[in-house]
């Protein structure tokens, strides 16, 4: 896993100040990315065991969630401590629509994204007046409130009424998947394609006017204001975009899980999400993929090695501290540097050892 992360990261890492995540100065890199994507879509699902097919579906979904949060934190400098609640909203909306209608899945995803976007923006609108810390705390409060509401209303399970929840159900029906992606391998392909589209959507924003405005706001909000940038509009725009992609991810999550429970969207989940997003790296879009891997593949690996999930919580905690102290650009930036340092160290050692051993390579 780390090897893949290194490979991809090595080719694309950029200094934090640069607004773009991907570099297209040459045609080689897009080609590499396209090849990677083709590999993930075409080959990967058939070589993985079913267990890891599912893990990779979750990686794809949570990469989108991390993408949304990374956009807020890294591009605009807004910290949200309530993204798990936003994801839950998206999943709730998608599940409700999927049970109520027979709309095609892409439309459901779009609807989940748009409705979550409206809700997220409504939350963001008043919150944007607040400065960084207050904004983070109010998202924590709102996430707490949403969690309580969801615990009480529950997720739709094929019941009637607005909430679509039937608490007395003995047999709970599954949430449907797209007809073309009913199997796990097909759903993995489907999720990866949707994720790629979401990444492209965000990339398109980052590399055009909104991206430049966000970069200006991030550097200095007062300077941005002075330069005539409508900071409120662009902050709200970021909120809307992040909520949209998170809502779409919620729609995918509904189909991948087939059952939804309020257990999975706790405040702790929001905090863990922020931790992995910081660890993955917030200045590169690749960081979101690393965050997805950390959050969903690593636990499965540890599980299969018999390591308690508690160690993961500890690791994420240490990761947050490490990132904030020494490596603000996250693993996507840190690992290649560390490897380069390790390489130099090894080469140095080899050089020192070589004369002594009398064998020169």
């Amino acid at each position, binding site marked *: 896993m780390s090897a893949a992360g290194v490979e991809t990261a090595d080719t694309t890492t950029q200094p934090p100040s640069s607004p773009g995540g991907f570099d297209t100065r040459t045609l080689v890199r897009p080609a590499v990315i396209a090849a990677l994507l083709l590999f993930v879509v075409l080959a990967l699902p058939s070589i993985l065991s079913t267990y890891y097919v599912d893990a990779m579906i979750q990686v794809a979904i949570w990469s989108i969630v991390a993408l949304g949060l990374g956009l807020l934190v890294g591009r605009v400098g807004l910290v949200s401590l309530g993204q798990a609640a936003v994801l839950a909203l998206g999943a709730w909306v998608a599940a409700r629509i999927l049970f109520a209608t027979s709309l095609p899945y892409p439309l459901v995803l779009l609807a989940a994204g748009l409705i979550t976007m409206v809700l997220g923006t409504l939350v963001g609108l008043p919150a944007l007046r607040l400065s960084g810390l207050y904004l983070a705390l109010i998202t924590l409060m709102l996430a707490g409130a949403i969690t309580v509401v969801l615990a009480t209303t529950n997720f739709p399970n094929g019941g009637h009424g607005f909430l679509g929840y039937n608490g007395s159900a003995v047999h709970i029906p599954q949430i449907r998947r797209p007809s073309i992606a009913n199997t796990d391998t097909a759903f993995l392909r489907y999720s990866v394609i949707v994720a790629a589209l979401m990444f492209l959507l965000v990339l398109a924003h980052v590399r055009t006017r909104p991206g430049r405005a966000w970069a200006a706001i991030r550097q200095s909000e007062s300077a941005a204001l002075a330069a005539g940038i409508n900071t409120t509009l662009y902050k709200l725009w970021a909120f809307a975009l992040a909520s949209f992609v998170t809502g779409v991810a919620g729609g995918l999550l509904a189909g991948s*899980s087939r059952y939804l429970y309020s257990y999975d969207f706790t405040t702790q989940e929001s905090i863990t999400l922020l931790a992995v997003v910081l660890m993955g790296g917030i200045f590169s879009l690749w960081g979101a993929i690393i965050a997805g891997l950390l959050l969903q593949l690593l*636990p499965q690996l540890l599980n299969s090695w018999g390591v308690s999930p*508690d160690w993961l919580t500890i690791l994420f905690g240490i990761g947050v501290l490490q990132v904030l102290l020494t490596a603000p650009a996250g693993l996507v930036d840190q690992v290649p540097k560390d490897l380069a340092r390790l390489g130099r160290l090894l080469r140095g050692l080899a050089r020192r050892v070589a004369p002594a051993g009398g064998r020169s390579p």
Partner: protein
Amino acid sequence: MSKYKDAPRVRLSFALAAAVGAMILAGCGSSSKSTSTTTPAPAPAPSTTTSTTAATSSSTSACGSKPGVAATGTPINIGTIDTHQPGTDFTDGPNMINAYFACVNANGGVDGHPLKLFVELDQTQPAQVAAAAKQLIQSDHVVAIDGVFDLLECTIDQSYWKSLGIFEMDAGIAPECWSTPNSAAVNMGPRYSSDGAVQYALASEHASKIVFVQSNVPGTGYIAAGPAALAKASKVPITELTENVPITDASSVALNLVDDAGSNGSVVLNFTPPEALVILQAVQKLGLEDRVKSWGCSTPCDTDFLAKALGPKWDHKLFVNAEATDADDHNGPEMQLYKAILAKYGSSVAGGIGSFSQFGFLLAKFLVQALDTVHGAYTIKSVNTAIEGIKDYKSEMLCQPWTYGNLALHIPNNADYTVTPESGKMITVQGCTSISSADPQIAQYHKVASAHGVASGLS
């Protein structure tokens, strides 16, 4: 982003802190090894301790056909899926099964074949539970699913088991564990256990009103339907409440419960042990124990820890439904074997003697008994035919013989004990009593069972 000039120093101090942290961890870890046996690990009474230690080797030999001969054949792979996440850790169940398997393997195995348990742990993520099931079948090549202690598993994997012809044995929580052809549980689960507690309040305490309160988790309506049906059959009004967990304002909850129940009513709780304890302690602090006729609780309250933590005012005031025979009160050969296996192979069973390990013991024992009936190769087909064929397996730990059978639903454990705290221990106040058929699911089970010629009630 410009404040990293003293990064090396920071990194050093960070490393230092990490090292100190690791040391603290290591220190705590070693000193608290034994202490992680938290709750219900009451050491067996002195007399039993000596007898078990003296007889350990001989009494654990009862779990296999060839005492003292290690099984060396090709292993029989068994799979299980269990919830393990911060705050909800059901791993005592599979750990006990592993202990039982170790005992079987050391004493001849199943016809010379050792048993191997593949444990998949989940963090209540539905997709993960589904993937775990496929992993067990496709990669681990297990031939049976046994010993599932999980919050969600029955719901999520039922259709998969059905498509493969697998009959799982579990100690579950989700409604599907008791309502599908492909699952049978050794425990009663929240609904029927709550039935038992409500039934006791109605029949023995003659409560004029029932207040049934449970944690607000998915499926509360399904659970409450049982107590509601029982109360209706007795023409007693019932109030169904749910509380979000974790409970932070237990005093208000306690006040609300006694206000609702009134002096002739009974309050019945269905919570995990920590939450039940929080409510009962708040009742105690507020001095409300006697403001209602009686207090009831589903199985999770049946721990000596709870009896100790609560004061003497609760003696014969709180009545807890117990799904399995109390290990302290009984000491037949099977109970001795359970304690001996726990002592010799069960070092990883953190809770020690308790309902989790008792159910783990039963699930392992029934499986081994079923495997003994298999002739020829151990395949999914042959093993699951044997499991489905389990009929009238007797156990000291259950009120009635346990039967799987080709039925549309299985509630093989439908008779319970009632216990109450007395001087720091839980003691039995009512022996085996059938859960009333006023619960439509119980009635349905008896109907289906008798149609198939299966004895389903107390004999």
